């Protein structure tokens, strides 16, 4: 069932430079060439009856309801499969057409409940609506014949039901699964009257390959596939457009409500990041927002060993402010700091950093990007001048070669992965560089041309060898380099990259990838013509994370793969607003728009706006805060929407640091690991309870709109304002729109952003200013933001984490589709149906050597600690490499990872830990505070 307020044009939009003019029911209409008649008619205001056609799917022509008459042509062609042509004269209504349509509908209704009252989709049921539209008043055929009305429903999926008695075999679900999602989990099984839609090999939904994206549910024109929440709560009566609070794809959704209760989330077909598609998390896993675990009242306690005491907002805020002031008075202005949240809005992150800089009087503010994409910030800013992805998501539709390195889009960024898979099915070539055979390496209708299964920690060597090949074989884009890049830097880099140490043969010894494979991939990338790089935390969360980002920038510049659609260097951001929280000044050395605090002219602008004098020195990063806490110079922390005790490295160290602080204020929707060390708990609001904006991985600023009232009475931005007021620094706004106006006044790249514009355009991509009033889909066109692109030599430096007799295996980590990060949200939803535990993937050879059988409990030991989980034996990982996810705290997956970090940004090296794995009789235990799971946060 499509969104309640969507209009269905019957066939997809066609983009063409040519247009055609035709007449439909006497009305002249001009449409792009290739537009189906049914769409042309809809654009002219004429709704042709239809069932198998919908504008999200390519025409299929099976239902025979959308028949029309075309002057000069015989018969009754289907308007969904017939393209409009110049001069056509089309009739959509005639006596003959009416009779044909009624006959078709009549046959459908012989095998379907006649009474609309029985239909769970009610007024939204397209079948009953079409029956009414074509004037079907009775069914002449007897009801007692053979039919499908006794088939059993499949209720196995936690979120939707499949009732085959209501299925009309229009194949919209099958086509949605194939064409939109790209999973190919559904099929029409059998022939003729025996035909049935079925998941997998006649399995139930839950046991099939279905990934529960919900595309089939949305495509279904009847009540055969229905959300369980609709069955429980009834049809919605209104919809509010908002933005998903999960990953960095930032899908646009319509929250459909009945009264003030959410009925369902439907992906917005006008949403530019997702074009009406979604994943299992965004569409279905929103129940955590009203989970009983939500904290609804502020709480305080003097010591962390005391029980929490519920208090009023006034008491909590006044206690927090008094303690922060006391600590500053006793230990100095720099003794406190704050952490902004990448799960909160831009406006909220902006206010937290403003609070720290203006009210705390220092720059001790940081954000969770520290532990995920901070190397992206450093690397891309150094090379190109701005720390953000170069393209919009739709750019991939023009890519000829796609290189995915250190990312697993089908699990981590599933909606973008669907777009990617569609492009690959259309013929784009694929290079995957990953220690593990991710799904993209081989799946239905997609196979990587090159799968470079490198040893964890060797990205830089691989990227350098690819660049070496491109330079050595004369595949560089010399015109691009001459016109766009620094000549001296290029000459120096060219000399460096041609050194023998960067050859594919040298890289083979380091990476384990055959030299000929590296050469082949490099040639494919260089020859494009359009080649695009997409990368994730498998690049950044390394000791050489920033170097690897610089190496990708070198590669793209050398091959001229920047500054136009279809190319680029694109980080796949983990959290919904990790891009935005960085944009609005969450790093300790930068004000909004990535401008360094040391710039006196810049500070003067902020000082005039904020009415205070600002500190010109960079503040402490999150790990520095912990170090300073342990040396006694950092005593207070305000943490908004971030569970540092769970997500940051070296959890014993974090726990000790938090324990050493005298005032820890946690603002979150649930009590979490960090709140175990907190003295004040301020209840936060979920993305459904507030107004604001999120910025996704393509720099797209999208509106977040309040769908329900905040359970604890305040939106997060309001809590920060109230804390500032209590500290004696009033920050008064009546609506987040005013906060965005302030950001726009202070930030050249946001100068043209306003809520009015977001309401009008739906979303905009920064830079959005006078030069680009509707935003910038592709960056660095004609010139880099920094002027000329900067090549830098990127020598490979091995990680200090080395295998040996004691720890012979390398552990690396990743995500799974149904869970999100440490599972705080998704473990409080129906998504617990899938992935009930984290497992250790181990190669058959390594398992056999250790006597480990599939499903056995094993102990994973590193120099940092030991954890216990069950083994899955698979050749997805190479010999010598083991892999696990980190969604369940009981597993404690990251207890074993180490303190190593990126040289430039201190981003932890989560992706490389040397370990030993042995069978064990131990079982996992919930570890005491401070010895709990920590994980890559995004």
């Amino acid at each position, binding site marked *: 069932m499509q969104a309640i307020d969507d209009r269905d044009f019957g066939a997809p939009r066609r983009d063409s430079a040519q247009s055609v003019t035709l007449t439909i029911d006497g009305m002249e209409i001009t449409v792009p060439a290739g537009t189906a008649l049914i769409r042309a008619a809809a654009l002219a205001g004429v709704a042709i009856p239809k069932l198998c056609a919908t504008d999200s799917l390519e025409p299929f022509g099976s239902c025979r309801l959308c028949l029309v008459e075309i002057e000069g042509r015989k018969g009754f062609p289907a308007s969904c499969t017939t393209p409009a042509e110049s001069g056509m004269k089309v009739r959509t209504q005639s006596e003959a057409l009416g009779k044909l349509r009624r006959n078709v509908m009549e046959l459908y209704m012989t095998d379907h409940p006649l009474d609309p009252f029985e239909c769970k989709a009610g007024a939204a049921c397209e079948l009953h609506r079409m029956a009414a539209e074509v004037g079907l008043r009775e069914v002449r055929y007897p009801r007692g014949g053979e039919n499908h009305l006794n088939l059993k429903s499949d209720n196995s999926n936690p979120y939707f039901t499949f009732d085959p008695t209501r299925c009309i075999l229009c194949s919209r679900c099958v086509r949605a699964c194939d064409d939109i999602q790209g999973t190919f989990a559904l099929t029409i099984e059998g022939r003729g009257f025996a035909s049935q839609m079925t998941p997998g090999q006649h399995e139930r939904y839950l046991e099939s390959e279905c990934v529960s994206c919900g595309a089939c549910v949305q495509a279904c024109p009847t009540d055969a596939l229905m959300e369980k929440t609709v069955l429980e709560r009834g049809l919605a009566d209104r919809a509010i457009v908002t933005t998903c609070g999960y990953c960095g794809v930032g899908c646009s959704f319509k929250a459909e409500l009945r009264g003030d209760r959410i009925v369902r989330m439907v992906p917005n077909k006008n949403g530019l990041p997702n074009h009406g598609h979604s994943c299992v998390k965004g569409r279905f896993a929103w129940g955590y927002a009203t989970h009983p675990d939500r904290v609804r009242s502020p709480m305080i306690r003097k010591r962390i060993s005391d029980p929490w005491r519920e208090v009023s907002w006034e008491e909590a805020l006044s206690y927090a402010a008094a303690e922060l002031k006391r600590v500053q008075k006793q230990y100095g202005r720099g003794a406190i700091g704050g952490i902004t949240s990448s799960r909160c809005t831009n406006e909220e992150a902006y206010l937290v950093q403003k609070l720290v800089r203006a009210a705390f009087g220092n720059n001790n503010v940081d954000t969770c990007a520290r532990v995920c994409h901070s190397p992206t910030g450093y690397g891309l800013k150094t090379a190109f001048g701005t720390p953000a992805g170069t393209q919009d998501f739709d750019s991939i539709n023009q890519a000829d070669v796609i290189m995915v390195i250190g990312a697993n889009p089908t699990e981590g960024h599933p909606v973008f992965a669907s777009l990617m898979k569609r492009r690959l099915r259309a013929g784009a070539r694929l290079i995957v560089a990953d220690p593990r055979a991710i799904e993209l390496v081989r799946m239905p209708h997609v196979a990587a041309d090159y799968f470079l299964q490198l040893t964890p920690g060797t990205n830089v060597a691989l990227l350098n060898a690819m660049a070496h090949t491109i330079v050595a074989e004369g595949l560089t884009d010399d015109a691009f380099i001459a016109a766009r890049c620094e000549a001296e830097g290029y000459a120096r880099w060219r000399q460096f990259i041609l050194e023998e140490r960067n050859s594919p043969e040298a890289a083979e010894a380091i990476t384990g990838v055959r030299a000929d494979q590296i050469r082949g991939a490099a040639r494919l990338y260089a020859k494009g013509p359009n080649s695009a790089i997409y990368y994730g935390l498998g690049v950044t969360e390394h000791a050489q994370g920033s*170097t690897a980002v610089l190496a990708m920038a070198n590669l793209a510049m050398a091959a001229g793969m920047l500054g136009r659609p279809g190319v680029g260097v694109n980080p796949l951001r983990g959290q919904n607003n990790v891009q935005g929280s960085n944009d609005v000044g969450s790093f300790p*050395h930068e004000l909004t728009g990535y401008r360094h605090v040391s710039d006196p002219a810049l500070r003067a602008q902020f000082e005039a706006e904020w009415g205070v004098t600002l500190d010109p020195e960079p503040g*402490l990063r999150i790990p520095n805060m912990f170090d*300073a806490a342990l040396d006694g110079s950092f005593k207070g922390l305000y943490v908004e929407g971030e569970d540092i005790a769970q997500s940051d490295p070296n959890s014993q160290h974090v726990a000790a640091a938090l324990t050493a602080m005298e005032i820890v204020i946690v603002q979150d929707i649930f009590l979490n690991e960090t709140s175990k060390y907190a003295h004040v708990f301020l209840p936060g609001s979920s993305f459904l309870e507030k107004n604001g904006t999120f910025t996704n991985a393509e720099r797209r600023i999208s509106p977040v709109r309040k769908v329900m009232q905040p359970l604890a009475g305040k939106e997060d931005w309001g809590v920060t304002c109230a804390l500032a007021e209590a500290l004696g620094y009033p920050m008064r706004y009546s609506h987040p729109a005013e906060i965005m106006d302030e950001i726009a006044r202070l930030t050249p790249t946001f100068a043209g952003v306003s809520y009015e514009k977001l309401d009008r355009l739906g979303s905009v991509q920064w830079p959005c200013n006078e030069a680009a009033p509707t935003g910038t889909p592709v960056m660095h066109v004609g010139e880099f933001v920094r002027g000329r692109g900067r090549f830098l030599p990127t020598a490979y430096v091995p990680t200090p984490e080395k295998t040996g007799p004691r720890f012979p295996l390398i552990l690396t980590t990743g995500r799974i589709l149904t869970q999100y990060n440490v599972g705080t949200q998704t473990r409080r939803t129906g998504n617990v149906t899938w992935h009930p535990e984290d497992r250790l993937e181990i190669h058959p050879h390594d398992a056999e050597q250790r006597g480990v059988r599939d499903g056995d409990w094993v102990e994973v030991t590193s120099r940092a600690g030991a954890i216990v989980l069950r083994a899955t034996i698979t050749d997805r990982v190479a010999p010598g490499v083991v892999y696990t996810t980190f969604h369940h705290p009981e597993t404690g997956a990251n207890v074993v990872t180490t303190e190593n970090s990126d*040289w430039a940004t201190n981003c932890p090296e989560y992706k490389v830990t040397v370990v030993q794995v042995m069978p064990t009789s131990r079982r996992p235990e919930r570890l005491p505070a401070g010895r709990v799971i920590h994980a890559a946060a995004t």
Partner: protein
Amino acid sequence: MDRHHLASMANEIGEFFESASDHDEAVAAIAQHLKSFWEPRMRREIIAYAAAGGDELTPIVREAVLTLAVPAENR
């Protein structure tokens, strides 16, 4: 703050710039990186450590750190 940890972080910064530039440029780049990204108390610690010998610092990092000790007007 833990000087061993600070020295280790500084050396990793030095390792990158040393391989990416000539000596003088690398010294300047290391110093600039520390100035841009390290909070003053961290810089004070590493400067004091370098001034006291800084055994765990690589020569180029020690050289770069010591340039930070010189007042800006004398640089």
